[in-house]
């Protein structure tokens, strides 16, 4: 890969000296993404598609147990991936859990990217006092241990339900809890995205084309959104992809403390946690979501790297 990049650079140089005035398009061949990246994209599309289609797929109810077959083993009839101690179907729970986990991860990172990205862009672009204030703010947020901050926010805004009758909490309550977790994790991710965006915006703002845009009479707001932001987006996207991966893992950690999606609603995190006391009873219950987290995080990390190298987001910017 490196070699082909070099030969391309050489080709550009040669073309630049030979045909100075008019370069053909063929010199700038589009680089492919590579097989691994397509596998990653394929996996994400698959998992998100399955999660979206959960209501229409022929699945058992993920919250109602089949008391005739508790702790069913993998490939047993009716329970392809087995069942848990209450006889709930693992396949169904893992797909409904994907819905919750991915919704949480994507929405919270989107929120963090929106807020953090805007603050970072503003800080990097405006510099001076604006930068000092905003950077101070993000540094303070970063100084909090992230897990503790998320835990605190969730506990304050959505206290644990004490009722343990096994019934699903009312739908609105499930939504409320999810919303609070999204907000909490979103706030936690704000300073990280703000920092990355600020660094990138800072370096792009000093580029000559920004000065050229100003010299043509463009106002600050226009320069910031039209000139700087499009150049900063790849860095933001790259970090956002990693962020989704981190939040998927973080959700598991929150589940350990019981502040993620609440039982009996499934999420990948609380499925793993539910079996922590007895790992060997029905291993599929924690192994399947673990594998899903692993593969999804891997795909996201890899795609983040692809975005970064493709758009030349340098390490120094990070």
């Amino acid at each position, binding site marked *: 890969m490196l070699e082909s990049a070099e030969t391309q650079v050489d080709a550009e140089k040669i073309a*630049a*000296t030979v*045909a*100075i*005035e*008019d*370069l053909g*398009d063929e010199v*700038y061949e589009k680089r492919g993404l590579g097989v691994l990246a397509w596998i990653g994209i394929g996996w994400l599309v698959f998992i998100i598609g399955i999660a979206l289609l959960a209501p229409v797929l022929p699945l058992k109810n993920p919250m109602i147990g089949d008391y005739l077959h508790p702790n069913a083993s993998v490939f047993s009839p009716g329970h392809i991936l087995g069942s848990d101690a209450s006889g709930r179907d693992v396949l169904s729970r893992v797909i409904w859990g994907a819905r919750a986990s991915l919704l949480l991860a994507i929405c919270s990172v989107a929120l963090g990217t929106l807020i953090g990205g805007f603050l970072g862009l503003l800080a990097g672009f405006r510099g*001076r006092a604006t930068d000092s204030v905003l950077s101070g703010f993000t540094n303070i947020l970063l100084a909090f241990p992230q897990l503790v901050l998320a835990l605190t926010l969730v506990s304050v805004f959505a206290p644990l339900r004490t009722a343990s009758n096994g019934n699903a909490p009312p739908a609105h309550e499930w939504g409320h809890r999810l919303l609070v977790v999204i907000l909490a994790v979103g706030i936690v991710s704000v300073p990280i995205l703000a920092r990355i965006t600020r660094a990138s915006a800072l370096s792009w703002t000093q*580029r*000559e*084309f920004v*000065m*050229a*845009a*100003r*010299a*043509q*009479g*463009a*106002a600050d707001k*226009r320069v910031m959104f*039209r*000139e700087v932001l*499009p*150049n900063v987006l790849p860095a933001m996207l790259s970090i956002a992809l990693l962020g989704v991966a981190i939040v998927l893992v973080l959700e598991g950690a929150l589940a350990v403390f019981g502040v993620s999606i609440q039982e009996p609603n499934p999420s990948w995190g609380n499925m793993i946690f539910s079996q922590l006391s007895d790992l060997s009873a029905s291993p599929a219950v924690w192994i399947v979501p673990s594998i899903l987290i692993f593969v999804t995080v891997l795909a996201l990390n890899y795609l983040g790297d692809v975005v970064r190298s493709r758009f030349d987001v340098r390490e120094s910017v990070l």
Partner: protein
Amino acid sequence: MIRRKKTTFPGTERFADAPLDGPLLEVDEVKTQFKTERGLVHAVDGVSFTLERGKTIGIVGESGCGKSVLSRSIMGLLPTNVVRHGSIKFEGHEIGHAKAAEMRPFWGTQMAMVFQDPMTSLNPVMRIGSQITESLRVHFDVTKEYADETAVALLVSVGIPEAERRMQEYPHQLSGGMRQRVMLAIALACGPKLLFADEPTTALDVTVQAQILDLLQQQQRERFMAMVLVTHDLGVVAGRTDDIAVMYAGRVVERAPTRSLFEHTRHPYTEALLKSIPKLAMPSHARLDAIAGRPPDLVKPPSGCKFAARCPYAQPKCLTDEPPLDDPDQPGHSYRCFFPVGSQAGRDALTRNLAAGETATGLPVRKEGEAVLTGVTG
């Protein structure tokens, strides 16, 4: 039909009754200083000139002499750690201390700039077309279709083939020369009266340089713009400007009509710049005359003549007194030197230095005023 957008700044309304006589630009004793940790950097130190409509002035000097800072001072494109003195009048309006918000209505419509490196002065992720129409849509209340048509016409006028297709392309798809043409189209979009070209060809391949310079000149004439051409290369401005100001250490050391400057060079620095240009008549592998030493520290500029330390004519007087910018020989041809090139005083000074083997500053000299290069040779 182009209608002007209303702006909050009253500046633009004034252009309606702007006087059509009188110089377009009057620069008077402009000083631009930067506050740094080392102290105040005197980047531009008392520069004055006037520029008539439709005329061209060349600002020449080596790197760090303040020529780019001067053009940015006039445009008001300066960082925040700047200290500004002096007066700049554009069509009679004082803009020497205007804030960015006050200058914005001027930028693009009244004055525009072509930057040095077309590789970095175009936005890599924006289509060529959008980059040209951007300022049209900022300043004028025009439809997208009208702006696009104007942009295509601009691209054609700066000599870009297949302009329609280029509109949809990104900067990386164009060569350096093409990008500089696009930069020029962007600068011309809103019909400025004053165009700054800041080393417009330095980053380009030599074979394209002449094309771009000819294009600049052609556009400047067709549009009756005034132009400030900033360069380190006297060869670039020869034959393309009406006047030339040679700058050294933030000051104008010689200012004259182009012809007079080349025919009756007065300042030793101008002479040294001319000598450093390779000529076709030279034998191959002939050593070029470099100017010994480096420009002075602009935080603590030396007393006396700023060029004395590198000047083969330097006398004791040059170290203590600074020569004024004056035109004793020909009106309009001013220079800052006690021992000008081509005068009896200058010849005597050089003879004395050659006899002594060194100048008053200790710079070794031998034959014909050539400074001996010490240290690395070849």
